[in-house]
Every structure is written in C-alpha cells, then in structure tokens.
C-alpha cells in the first residue's frame, strides 16, 4: 500500500511518518508538496505533525488554503483514508473535514510526554486491528491540543461512536477526554497523539503500529480483487 505524506512549509513530522511507514510498517510512503493540485497514485493520505505556516494566526488556519487541500477534500469525498496527526488534526479541523476545534492546553504550556489512550471504537479503518478498549501508549507533543466542541457535536460524536481515542489521564483539558475523532463517514481521522513516534521498541513503544496496520487491512479489503 502507498501512503502519501503531505509536506506543508513548516511540517516537521513528515520524515517521521515517512520513516514509520517505510521502515517499521513495511509499506511505501512518498512526500506530496503542499502546492500539488493532485495527490497522485496513493492509497491513503497522512497530514503530519509540525507547525504548518508557523501556525501563525491559528494552528492550521493558513494550511487549509494550500492547493493540496482541495485534492485532500476530493480524496476524502471519494472515500479515501485521511489521517491527521497533531498539526494534521488541527488542519483537518480548520478545513472543516472534522468537527470542533483545538485550543491552547489547559496549562498554557507545550507538553511533550507519553500518554495512555483508550481505544474508543473498533468500527473504523484506523482502529479495527485493535482489541476492544485497548490501551495504547503514545507520545503527545503539542501546545494546542485541547479539543473543544459544542455539546450537541460532542453528543453526536459519542452517539455515532466516532470518538476514536480518549486520554486516560487528560493532559490538556480536552472535553470528554477526547484525543482523536472520526468524520461521519469514518474515513477521516484526526488525533493529537503521535502514532508514528511509537512504531518500534527503540522509540519506547510500538503501540502506534496498530493504527497503521488497521489502515493497511482496510485498504487491502477495499482493493479490487486481482485474479
């Protein structure tokens, strides 16, 4: 399977996502420059972490206007898998592909540490390889990861089983401990923790692989049967 990793000016986890897919997942990854009008021949898109456009104005607020985002929208509308990690999650929210917003952490400081997450649903192409309620150890590294939304949206996310991950020890003040969510069609996921930073024992955890493996399984299932 081939993953496309979008490179915005200021993305800085693009190499990490690329490395995780190529070396630790054993699949292909290629970079897609932000002013591309098309995504090319890929099976899934990753919007990586970093500080796209310096995160000036608001995290993700400028990146959503990058030409590549129109292609990402089309890709998502066609049912393609889109994973937004950290800054990528912020961009997906700004672009309206996911609901809610990400605000300053409750303590007003950048936080980098390993956190524990509980898998909220197995019914998604990003979590299907996990076990029910599986606890993952993944790092966070963000200053603006406090997930907020209005009550109705939060109720809807829960009613539709779209909360992908929740923090066990909420580090940033996110409402209802939400760490990652799905869109209504379940083919777009954003999360603040970094699964690509937990893909081999040397990184301290390999728990992030379950997300990438779920994606691969879903893509294999969806691929046309070749006889």
């Amino acid at each position, binding site marked *: 399977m081939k993953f496309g990793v979008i490179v915005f*000016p200021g993305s*800085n986890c693009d190499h990490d996502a690329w490395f*995780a897919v190529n070396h630790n997942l054993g699949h292909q990854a290629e970079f897609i420059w932000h002013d591309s009008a098309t995504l090319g021949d890929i099976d899934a898109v990753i919007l990586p972490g970093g500080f796209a456009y*310096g995160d000036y104005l608001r995290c993700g607020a400028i990146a959503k206007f990058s030409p590549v985002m129109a292609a990402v929208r089309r890709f998502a509308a066609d049912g393609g898998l889109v994973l937004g990690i950290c800054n990528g999650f912020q961009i997906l929210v700004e672009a309206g592909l996911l609901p809610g917003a990400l605000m300053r952490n409750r303590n007003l*400081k*950048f936080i*980098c540490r390993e956190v524990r997450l509980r898998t909220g649903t197995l019914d998604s192409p990003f979590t299907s390889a996990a076990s029910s309620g599986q606890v993952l150890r993944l790092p966070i590294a963000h200053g603006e990861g406090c997930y907020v939304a209005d009550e109705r949206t939060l109720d809807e996310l829960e009613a539709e089983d779209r909360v992908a991950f929740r923090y066990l020890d909420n580090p940033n003040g996110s409402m209802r401990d939400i760490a990652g969510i799905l869109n209504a069609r379940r083919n777009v996921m954003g999360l603040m923790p970094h699964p*690509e*930073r937990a893909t081999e024992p*040397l990184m301290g955890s390999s728990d992030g692989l379950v997300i990438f493996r779920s994606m691969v399984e879903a893509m294999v299932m969806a691929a046309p049967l070749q006889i």
Partner: protein
Amino acid sequence: MSTLAITPDLIAQHQLTEPEYRKIVDILGRAPNYTELGVFSVMWSEHCSYKSSRLHLKKLPTRGKAVVQGPGENAGIVDIGGGYVIAFKIESHNHPSFIEPFQGAATGVGGILRDIFTMGARPIAVLDSLRFGPLDDAANGPRNRRILQGVVAGIAHYGNCFGVPTVGGECIFEPCYNGNPLVNVFALGVAKKEDIFYASAAGVGNPVIYVGAKTGRDGIHGASMASAEFTEESKQKRPNVQVGDPFLEKLLLEACLEAMQTGAIVAIQDMGAAGLTCSTCEMGSRGGTGIEIELDRVPQRETGMTPYEIMLSESQERMLLVAAKGREDEVFRVFRKWGLDAVTIGTVTGDGLLRVKQHARTVAEIPNRELADEAPLYDRPHIAPPARPLATPAARPVVDPAAALTKLLASSDICSKRYIWEQYDHMVRTNTIAGPGADAAVVRIKESGVSVAMSLDGNSRYCYLSPREGAQLAVAECCRNLATVGAQPVAATNCLNFGNPERPEIMGQLVEAIEGMSDACRFFETPITGGNVSLYNETLGDGIWPTPVIGIVGLLRTATPVTRNFKTAGQPVILLGGLGDCDEVRFGGTEYAKVVLNELWGLPPALDMDYEKRVHDAMREIVAAGLAESAHDVSDGGLAVAAAECCMGGVGAALHFESDLSPEILLFHEGPSRILVSTESPDEVIRIAASHGVAAPRIGITMNDGLGIGNRGATLISVTIDSLRENYEGSLEKQLRS
C-alpha cells in the same frame, strides 16, 4: 561617504580604545568613516574577536583522529564512520536572555542551529545549560522565576517549531546569577561526509547571494552589548535583542540543504552576531578573497536604512552564500520553492577588500583579513584566584540523614527538571533513545547504525573554589556520563562564561579554567572542536562565578540504552569505582554544604584522572557485554542522592556499607569516578572492574519497598519511594508557583 565626524567620544561609544583606533587608522591608511568605525567595532568586540581569550584558547587540544574540522569554522566536525559526520557546537546567549528572556533564549537556539546547517548538516539534537538566580531569593526571586519561565518558553518555542528535539541539559541556581543568567545552547547535526560545506569565499567573479529574512534595524550592536557589563542603562538596550521566527528558520534549513544538493553553492555562512559585516569579511578572509556588495540590493524591512544600520543589523534567519557563476538560477529556484528571498548582492573579487556600496557609491572599504583575523590580541594581566578558607566555617550541626536527603531531593539544583523538559519536544525526528533526565542523551543516526551520546556539564561552585580543578571535574563528569550509557567520548565543545576580563582576578579564573580543561581534554582524548567565550557577565560590578561549561559527544552502537532507574527487585547493586574518599576540605563544595548547611568552603572533590578513565573503560565494557540492568553516575548530592534517583521508577534498594567515614560524608560526598550499577551478573561485573584495576564493592540489592541505607549495622536512611518521588518530582513547579 558618511560625513559624521569621528570624535573621541564616538570612538569610546563604540567601545574601541585609543590604541585600537590607531590600529584601524594604520590598516586603512586613513581615518575610518562612521560606517567603517561601526564595522570595526563589532568585528573587534570581545564577542566576535575573542581578543582577551584567544591567547589562552590556543592551549586547548583541537586535534584528534576523528576530527575533520576543528575551531575556526561555524561548527566542529567529527567523523562517525559509515560515510557520515556530525557537526556540533555550543554557544551562549546570556546577555540577551537577561534583557528579554523569551526572545533572547529563542534566538540563541536559532543562532546555533544556523551554525550547524551552514555546514550542510541537518540538526538532530539540542541541549541547554542554564543558570539562574535562586527561585526563592529574597530580593530577586520573582524576577528569577520570570526569567526561567521566559527562557524555557523561548527555547521550546524555537526548537519545537523548527523541529529539532531538545534532548537534555542542566539547570543550576546560584545567587551570582541573579543579575546575569546564563543560557548556553548546544546543537548537533548530521551530514554525509562528502556533503560538508565551508564558509570560504572562492572564485573571483562568483555571485554573493543573500537569502532569508529581510534586514531590519533590530539587534544593531548586539555583539558589542554582549561585550560589556550590565549597568542601569542596559535595560534601555532592549531593542538590541532580536526577534526570532522559527518557521522562517525551518524554511531556511530545508531550502539551504536542498540548494546545497544542486552543487551550485561554493560557500555559505549564516548571519549571526555582527550580521552582514561578519559573514562577508569572514568568508572573504578564509578564502583570501575580496567581496564587493551593493546595499541597495539587500532586502530591507524598513525604509531609509543607513549603511551603518544595514551592515550592523542582527536580524535573524539570514544566510549569505557564494554560488558558482552562471548557476545562480539553480539556487534561486530552490529558494523560490520555499518562498524565501534570494538576491545577488555582490561578487567575489580578487583584491582582498570588503567593499560596500550604496547607490553605487563606496561607503566602506576595509581589508577582509585585517578586519576578520587581525583584531587586537590582549595578554591581559591575571592573578591566581584567591585561596578559599579550607576549614568548615562553623561547627556543623548534626542533621538526620533522611531529612538531609529529603531536602536535597527537593532542592532546585537536584530536583526533577520535568517541568522544564516537558515543554520541549524531545522526541521529534524519532531518534531519541535516551532523552531528558538521563545521564547522557542518546540520539541514533538512522542512516548508520551508530548512536551519538551527548552531555553538558559545568559546576561553578567547584570552579569558584578552584577554577582549574573545577574545569577538570566538569570534563571528567561529562565523560563519565557518556560512559554510563556505554559511549566512547570522541570530541568536545566548550562555553566559557566569566566576568570582566579587565579585572586580573577574573582573568586569572579564565586562564586557570582553560588550563584545567585543556589538561583534562587531553587526558580523556576529547579535543575541543569549537565553542564560545562569554565575558563581561557582570551586573553593577558583581561578576558571576567562573562557569566553564563543557559539552562532550560520544559514540556507541545503536541499541536499547542502559538507563538510570532500577528495573526489578532482587538485583545486586554494585558501586563501580568504590566508595571514594573525602575529607572535610573536599566536602565544602558539595550540594550538602550548599543546601543543608548553607556554606561553601575548601576545595572541590579530588580527581584522579587516571582512575576516572579506568572506571569509564570498565563501565563501557560492562554495558557492551549487556551486564548492566541500570546505571547512574554519582554526582551532585553524592551517593544517597544517586541511589534515590535510581528508585524513581518504583523499584528501591537496600544498601549497606562498612565504612569509617562519618555518615554525612559517606552519604553525600561528591567524589568522582563512581557509578551505581544494578546487575544480574555481579561476579562478571566485578571481574571486569578488577581487570581495569577498579574497585567494585557489592553494596546491596534492589527491592520493592523503598530505599534503605545502613553503615556497620546502623540504619542511616529508610524511606518510601513515594516520599522520595514527592520531594523530587513536584518541587520545581512548587517553587515557581510560590
């Protein structure tokens, strides 16, 4: 030419002495104009010219078999095998960080990162050595707390956005830093050996290209500010502190590395201190060439800037490069892709002169070599530092060892710095295999199967008592930190923070520290490949204690690292190096003396470099054989603190000694050459130690129920792990809130 009259007052304002001015007139064969006076004043400032320290810096060892590039370039370079090299250096940003903590520290990070990628290396790690006044200082506490928070936030802001992990460092508090905090930033990058770039302008007729941020009026005379003491007026120098834009620097990094791949770049240098002045004349001087630039072409943020202002601006995130003639477009294409300004502002010439034009008229004309490399050199008078009282100042109170341990663990020097390093992204690039809190940070090189271990050390209490021994102890500890994780030291960088060198006693400290560091670096085979000297760290006549900081890098095979915490109960604990010895005189510089007794006397701990090195060799062999379950170096706070730190993972230990030392000396002396190791195979560890002639007493066993330490049957300490953690973990945050 500028017509402003060059008066003695104006010369003095530029911190140039009368003889220095006469030298300028000699070099030019005429009086300088205003622009030229400014250009000379920054290049000949202490910060840029090392005029007080150069003579003594020559004593440092700079060569080694792995050293590809020693001092004199933007960073030192060391071969790590497999076709790869590392580039690294430490630099201070002390003065700006006092005036404006957030931006001062942020631009300190930005400056050192540019030094690394100027060489063609991608930065992969940052470490910081920080010194502040006490957080609970009666008069300065609130300001010290604000400075710490600003500095930490500034480092985080720049490093996190740029995408380099901040993987370690140190943070110490002393009253001498009340008016003069220290911010020393170390950065390290990796490159293919054939991709190294140098800052040497070659090829007459080649275009000189300016890239990156536009030039503004910010930071004018920053280098001169860093070369003077602080006075009441210094607060008005805030506009001298630059403002950093880490996003722009990230673009500059990617664009420079990509442009270097075109093969069209001949030389490149960042514009740091002294900006356009320094980058032009240094590149010309190194290449033995001249450089002619037209200021009208320099991208400018403000209108009406004078030649003086443009040449002296320290606006951040700018680079100057020399391209191969006719291949400019290849370079421009890359910078356009990244949305950056890139403009040809001049050419390399054959006459050795820095010729600056504005509106086609020459506004400055100075020989590059004399400007860059022939700054005045001073052999400033120096006297041996005064001897400190050798005896304990007063009868020592008897303190319960457990209470003393509690106090030490909660003290700002020793307590966990988690509050600080959790604000740094220490994982980005997914290479960090031992991060903040470890004895040495370890970052793997994905391309080569080798990892780089790094540590920064400096102890100004020791250096106050004896600058020479203190500097040696810093080198020894740094090498010990590397050995603890199994790394072999290969090279070093230093940052020498001192007071006013025009005072003979301060100059004496500098000379002693350099000589001590020099001896130790020679002995431990860690040549100094570059670094920085920061003098005039004084406010209103009060100088800092001598604070030489050493950064040493080592190499090891990439593998799961040995870490500090005890892992499982029931493992024998060995004190590699033995109990060590200490008398009253050598106890006066310890953290115990500072925190528990509030005293300082005598001499720093005694160091036997030969023994120290054998301990390191033994430790590396133990790690390589996979025998260490955990390892932690004994340093600040001594054995009891080291043992308590090993318990923070939840597994404790019962330790027992048969020693004649008094309890407080046994538990808290800071004699070097000691590492706490837990192991499944004690006999094997003891055998390896013995083969190196190193003592390795078995001192106890790990257990689940807390930390117990006894001597000759008497219990000295018995505490729960929860109480250890409570004191150690939350203390810094508590002190910042108070």
